[in-house]
């Protein structure tokens, strides 16, 4: 991919990378803006909340499992990476697990979660070049756990081959990392060994957790001098469409997983918390909500309100990507319109800006983006996004708009999953997306016609 640059023409903004929703921006990127530091912590961000939770669980045997609930397009992954960087000073050593690479998303078992966690911890330490020496007895225990207890002697050679021998003679973590990687690969795809591995691993859940803890304890003992503790972050779990997989493998097994001796953060969909399939995430995990940009700071502020601090954050975010003064006829008003239509959802800010630039580029009478172009962009995006709405959902939308609350109902889950109901605060209150408010079906539902 070519190097990213700030767009200085309408066509570059409309067709280039600057406003392409597929571009991933992480801390350190030239377009990155640390919104967590720009916006009021009582209304936005997760660093302060995570900091509090980790500080409350600083005891040697205290670890916490956190569910990070946020809608797609709110910048969760970026926020967490920034938070983890900020929280290194309290001794957190982040270990990232990309659920996409680690699980068979249509078939996840509890044992997979534990094996993937262990693999990620070992791999991260190896990749970071950590010089950690595990006690030989522990190393042998881990090797036996993988090669004999989980895989079983009959399949050990077929699955692990020479790695098994290599690991037993290895003095460091790489051998164990290789064994674990092979196991992870096996449970991710459907094959003849997977069910046997799962069966063996899950035969005694306590033993499974004890074995994982033996390794985690060994790692923590080695990290003790640096006062570091592992925090495993399961990213992309919220993208698994079949939420019952997450429910069965994680939420319903939270008692077992809660015994793991490391911190864990699971990325969740808000529907897991507010309209769950069976297990409500907040009953089994400490849930931290990731709200959108607080363009409204209180439900009493109407949908037309855009708070100055949020407006400035959105302006900075867009200005990193496109030359606002060059491309927007009235930058302040256009950014305000984008902010208002976005409802504070980051991805919608980007998409509204791109579509508005597209319309302006098409408009023979305009050489810059106007508020009218932004409004047209909003109508276009709204039509696309609202295709999933049902009549029951429209009725619920009216109620949610009036009550600023959501309930455990299928319509609410539908709108939460599709970011058509937005969370507005760290202690969330809710409102429907502005796309809904301006659709004639919302007015019809308000009149009781739908």
């Amino acid at each position, binding site marked *: 991919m070519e190097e990213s640059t700030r767009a200085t023409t309408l066509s570059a903004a409309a067709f*280039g990378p600057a406003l392409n*929703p597929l571009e991933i921006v992480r801390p350190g990127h030239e377009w990155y803006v640390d919104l967590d530091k720009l916006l009021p912590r009582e209304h936005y961000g997760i660093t302060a909340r995570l900091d509090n939770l980790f500080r409350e669980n600083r005891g040697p045997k205290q670890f916490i499992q956190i569910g990070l609930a946020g809608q797609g397009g709110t910048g969760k992954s970026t926020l967490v990476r920034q938070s983890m960087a900020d929280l290194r000073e309290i001794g957190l050593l982040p270990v990232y697990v990309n659920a996409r690479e680690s699980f068979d998303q249509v078939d996840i078992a509890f044992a997979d979660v534990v094996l993937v966690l262990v693999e990620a911890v070992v791999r991260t330490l190896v990749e970071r070049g950590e010089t950690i020496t595990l006690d030989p007895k522990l190393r042998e225990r881990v090797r036996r756990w993988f090669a004999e207890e989980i895989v079983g002697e009959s399949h050990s050679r077929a699955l692990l081959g020479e790695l098994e021998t290599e690991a037993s003679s290895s003095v460091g973590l790489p051998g164990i990392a290789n064994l674990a990687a092979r196991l992870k690969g096996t449970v991710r795809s459907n094959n003849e060994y997977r069910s046997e591995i799962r069966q063996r691993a899950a035969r005694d859940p306590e033993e499974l957790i004890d074995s994982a803890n033996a390794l985690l304890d060994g790692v923590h003992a080695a990290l003790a001098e640096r006062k570091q503790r592992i925090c495993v972050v399961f990213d992309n779990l919220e993208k698994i469409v079949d939420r019952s997989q997450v429910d069965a493998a994680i939420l319903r097994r939270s008692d077992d997983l809660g015994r793991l001796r490391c911190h864990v953060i699971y990325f969740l969909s808000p529907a897991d918390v507010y309209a769950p399939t069976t297990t409500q995430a907040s009953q089994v995990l400490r849930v931290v909500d990731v709200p959108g940009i607080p363009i409204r700071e209180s439900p009493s502020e109407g949908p037309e309100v855009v708070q100055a601090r949020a407006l400035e954050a959105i302006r900075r975010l867009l200005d990193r990507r496109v030359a606002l003064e060059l491309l927007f006829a009235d930058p302040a008003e256009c950014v305000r319109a984008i902010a208002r239509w976005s409802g504070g959802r980051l991805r919608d800010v980007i998409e509204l800006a791109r579509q508005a630039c597209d319309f302006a580029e098409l408009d023979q009478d305009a050489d810059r983006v106007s508020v009218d172009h932004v409004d047209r962009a909003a109508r276009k995006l709204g*039509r*696309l996004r609202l*295709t999933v709405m049902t009549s029951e959902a429209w009725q619920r939308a009216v109620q949610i708009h009036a009550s600023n609350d959501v309930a455990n109902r299928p319509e609410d889950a539908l709108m939460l999953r599709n970011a058509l109901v937005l969370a507005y605060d760290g202690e969330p209150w809710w409102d429907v997306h502005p796309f809904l408010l301006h659709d004639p079906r919302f007015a019809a539902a308000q009149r009781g016609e739908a």
Partner: protein
Amino acid sequence: MQSLGEHERLVRFLLGASWGVHLVLARYEHAGVARRARAAAIVAVRAGGREVAQVDFGDADDEVDIVGRLQAANARAPIVFAFGLEGLLLDLGVAPRATDAIARFNFDRDLLPERLHGVVVLWLSYRAARAFASLARDTFDVISTSFDFPELLVGGEGESEFGREFVSMDSLPEWATRAPLARVPELEDRARLLESLYADATPGSAGAAELAVSLGKIESSLGHVDAALEWFERAALDYVETGDRPRAVDVRRWRTSLLLRAQQFELARAESSAALALAEATDPTSKISAQLAVAEVKQQQGHYDEAIHLLRDVANRAAPKLRARALTQMASVMLAAGDPASALAVYEKISSIEALAGDAWDGARNSKSIAAVLVSMQDFEAALEILRGILPVFAELGDELEHGRTALFIAAILARLGEADQAKSLLRETAIPTLAKVDALDDQARADALLAALEREAAASKDRG
């Protein structure tokens, strides 16, 4: 025309997009229109110096690696047109279904920038696009932009399909159409309950047969075709055991229709033969019912003359209600055979059947079929007059779905006639709110798209000056 503007926008995007990968959605009403739009875009893009590769997922299995196939095509050209994804998103082109392929495509979203470059255009029917929005919402969320080819008012290949869409959809019984998503949990609960009752029912009893019929209908409306076929099979066997062969014939006819929609023509032919064999020893009505199934198979196989001959024979022997049904089916065959004038004559004949005179709904629906044929014959004014006449009838009868769809039909014709303001007003005030009331999401999407196209056209006119 609106679609022409959309075509230009699409080409402009394809030639203008730079760096990274852009995922783009092109939504269409009918496959013929999409095919022509793709062909035209390829010519224009090649003239602009870029190459296009196409990936047809029409024959893909449920576990196909979508990103992998896109990547392979992308190695040949920077622009990729992906089409034929409907089979991975919808059962029988109707109900959304969750396939592993689509689930993984959603999960692999963040891989796209690593594995692809240029522009990937996903060509999806409105119905499939809606299924995509709910089944692959994370990938849907990073769509850069969308292009709409909503209506058939552009002349050419799609023209005759426009009217036919309204006719063919009208003829499907409720259980054969997709249940609204909001009803799915309720239907699934009912299915579980009925399954437990069926387990306790005496095999081969009338009760078991009725339960199996209900389960077949529920599974069908949930889009579970294999399960529906199985339940109908059990029902047919149970009815035979109880001696109720006419009901068994009905159920075999339903199986025939389901198999045809699944494009399993040989199995459908065998099923219709089984229905006919069962009907031989029963009453004349059952035999006619079985013959209608045979005619349906012949139509789907393209044996139009044989189908018409059979239906004419049936119509001559049948009582008024069945006669009307046979004639309706015959008109449909004539339309498929490209003979709208004969189809029109048949529909007008149906109007005169006495049995219909007392049934306002049947009469209105038949009038709507006539209007659809008139549209395919370019007689828009006559079609409008008929449709305006029946619009209040559906409203008075409380049939919101027909009311909304008829309003949409009228709006589409008005748009074609250049009456954009009237069309927009009808869409906003009647079609969209009415269709929303009954969760006719696909029709809503079509109405939305038409409204958007009209608004775009108005904005473009304003820009032009």
